[in-house]
Structure formats: structure tokens, C-alpha cells
């Protein structure tokens, strides 16, 4: 019998890894490809173990990301709260999509997130970003199936350890 609840330890561990990956130095050429790691990890947990991911937690995670990354305070908080809200709303459907369809919906979610970011950028009066701005959602979508498998594996390993 599969345990109903996941322990929050694994959730926070994977999230911490995502934050480190977000801040990790990459050469400028690769930097533009960096996917929105925290969003991907949150989508996974939201789909698989919903009661771990509440909007309150997500908001605080977003604020943390803003503080660490030096972005406008509340920017990632807003973006992640909206993202998680959408995932919880369509969770029942998303969970039973075949992988490619799920990846497509992840793409839609990430794209929507970029549009929100674009809106904030234009509100601030910053110049509109170049085309590389749209790369991260694509990279995120391509990574999604593998990330899903990886996180599934981590979660299963964690559970097995908890049972023995």
C-alpha cells in the first residue's frame, strides 16, 4: 500500500536543490537556457502530493527566491502562486494526461508565467527583452519528463527508506 502522505523533508530537499540550481553560476552562453527550476519542482509536487503544496508555502518560497536572486520583491511570489493555483485547479486532468500531453501543459504553464513576467517588466518601464527570453519555457518542457522520473525516483527511494 502506498503511503498517503509524503514527508515534507523530501519536498524541501528537492526545492532547496532547485534554488541552488537557480543561483548556480553558469557561463553567460548557457545562462539564457536556465529553466525555471523552482516552478518545475513545484508543479511536480503539486501534481503528486497536493497537501504538501499550499499557496501560503508557495508564496513564502517565492519571496525567498526574490530575496536570494535580488529580483523585485514579490515577483516570484506572484508568479509561483499563480502557477500553483492553476496546477491545483486542473490537477485531476493533468495527472492522467499521457506524458507528452502533460509536457505540453507544463509548457503552457511556463509560457503563461513568462507572459506575467513580461507584464511586470513592462509595468516597471524596462525595455522588452529579446527573443532569448522565451527559451527557458522550452528548455523546461524538454526537461520535464526526465525531471518527473528523477523526482519520482527520489520520492520512492525516500519512502522505501522510511518503511524499512
Amino acid at each position: 500500500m502506498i503511503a498517503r502522505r509524503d514527508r515534507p523533508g523530501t519536498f524541501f530537499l528537492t526545492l532547496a536543490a532547485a534554488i541552488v540550481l537557480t543561483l548556480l553560476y553558469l557561463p553567460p552562453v548557457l545562462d539564457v537556457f536556465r529553466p525555471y527550476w523552482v516552478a518545475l519542482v513545484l508543479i511536480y509536487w503539486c501534481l503528486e502530493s497536493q497537501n504538501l503544496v499550499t499557496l501560503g508555502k508557495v508564496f513564502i518560497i517565492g519571496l525567498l527566491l526574490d530575496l536570494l536572486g535580488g529580483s523585485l520583491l514579490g515577483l516570484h511570489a506572484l508568479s509561483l502562486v499563480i502557477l500553483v493555483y492553476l496546477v491545483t485547479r486542473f490537477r485531476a486532468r493533468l495527472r492522467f494526461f499521457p506524458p507528452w500531453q502533460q509536457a505540453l501543459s507544463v509548457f503552457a504553464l511556463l509560457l503563461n508565467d513568462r507572459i506575467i513576467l513580461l507584464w511586470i517588466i513592462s509595468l516597471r518601464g524596462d525595455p522588452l527583452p529579446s527573443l532569448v527570453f522565451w527559451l527557458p519555457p522550452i528548455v523546461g518542457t524538454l526537461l520535464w519528463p526526465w525531471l518527473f522520473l528523477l523526482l519520482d525516483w527520489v520520492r520512492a527511494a525516500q519512502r522505501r527508506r522510511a518503511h524499512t
Partner: protein
Amino acid sequence: MVKGSTGAGTKFFGPTAQTARLMLYGLLAVVLMAMDQRGHYGAGIRSQAAYLAEPVYHIVEWPVRAMRNVFGQVQSRRSLRQENTALKEQLLRQQGSLQRLDTLLEENRRLRALIEGAEGQAFEYQFAELVRVDLDPFSHKVMVDRGSSDGVEAGQAVIDGAGVMGQVEDVHLHFSTIRLISDPNHALPVQINRTGLRTIAFGSGVTGILKLPTVPRQADIREGDLVVTSGLGDRFPGGYPVATVTAIDRQEGQTFVLVEATPLAALDRGREVLLIDALAPKVDEPSLPDQQDAGDDNKVSDGEQSGQEAARPESADADGPEGET
């Protein structure tokens, strides 16, 4: 937040409650963003969070540092020797060009005394290295490895070997973040070196472009002109190179010309920077004769005035947008 984030009961998971929560958090985020943009509480919250951020930055930087150490070990003797020769050559060349500096400084001091101008400040430089942590690409910030434990203070000017980079914004214990001059919210009081024309250089949001939107149409400005800091606004010391003018667009019927300049500093690819200690004691501030009998209570503003007197109209502009606008 109102209903608590642990509400596992089904009643709190209804779509209406969830939507209400989305609204609440969304609104909160927007309010926070507006506050941060206006520069009200953002800095305070950030400095409070420094203790939390510090260990994370250490963790993030660790793999890069480890990798650099490994590569440093295997770097061949030959390439090191080559680099050494190149550096020696460079040092000699720069020493050569510095030889006349002492006499020039002395001459400058004498001439300033002659016209009773404010004497130049003495500056101290602090070496710092960029930390390999990638901040948000839209934040126009970089991080250096000196913090409050090294005496860094918010507002210090930062330069690299070629020109002005930005100013210190948040100071953590061992790190500090620097806002680059390319930030659209950053304004830097500058002057054209050739003519002495004073203006303001705004960031454009693109690393390679600064904008000088307040140059009048009839002004004498050419492509290739060197733009240096003017020292107004009391934050950036004067005379440091900032950019070269690359494009001038004189449109019919406009009061101002559109001037674009390319920063000299390697904003996106530099590695070593210098923090200018602008807080070094000013070399005796000469007070103007008619201000000497003024009361002690407005001594501070007097000191500022004597330095800025020549540029009243602009200094008001220059003070304002230098922080967040």
C-alpha cells in the same frame, strides 16, 4: 495566511476558498512589488534577510570555487609564466604613465588653491572579486565577495579597470550586491570630458547601452566622446570614465538629442572590481568666507554647497534619480 497554510480539511480546499487565497496572495505580492519599486521597505527587508541569504550563497558558490581550484592546480607552468610576463609588461607600461601623476596632482592642488576651489577628495580602493552566483537576469545586479565585515557600506561606488560599474546596494556580512549602471532605474551624474557638458546617464536595461536623454539639441557632442563622472550628487567621485558616446540622433522638433553611449566597464563579463571608499575623510573642506559666520547647525549643508555651487540646477536633478525612482 488568514486560514492558515495547514488546512488539510476538505472545506478549505474548495475552489472558492482557493481562488480567494490566490487573490489575497496575489494582492500581497503586487503591494510588495510596488513598495520595493518605490524603494520604501525593500532595502530594510533585504538587509534583514541577509543572515538567511549568506549561507545559501556560500553553498551555491562552493562548486564553482572547487572547480576553479582544480583547474588552478592543473594550469600549466608555461601558461603561468606567459601570463606573468604579460602582467609585468602591463605593470611597467602603467607605471610609465603614472610617473607624471605626482607632479600633476601637486600642480592641480596649487591651481585649485589659487581659485579657492574645493579640493579633491582622497580615495581608498578596496579590491573585490565577483562572486559566481547568478542573480535574476532582470535585476541588473552582481555580487562581490566583500561585505560589512570588510567595511563595505551601501552607496559606495564600484569601478573596474576600465570604468564605472555601479554602486553597492545591499551589504551582507561577507557579500554585497552591486547595482549596475545599466539598470533602467539607475542614473549617474556625468559630464562630457571634451567639453565639460554636464548631463545624466541612465541605464537602458541593456548591458551595452547607456542613455543620455537630457542633452540639448545645440550641445557640442560627437560620437566617440568620453563620458566621465561629474562628481555631483555626492555619490560617485568625479573624473572616472563611464562610457563612450556611440550614437547621436538629432531629431527635428525635439528639444533634446537622443544620445547613446557604451559603458567602458565590463558589466557582464568582468571579474575583479574596486570599491571606492568615498567615505575617506575629505581633505579639509574650504568654507567660503561669507559662510564662516553661519551657525554650527547647518555646517553640513554648507560643506556640500561649496562643492556643488557651480552646478545648482543640475545637482537637484542629480540627487533625485540616483536612488530608486
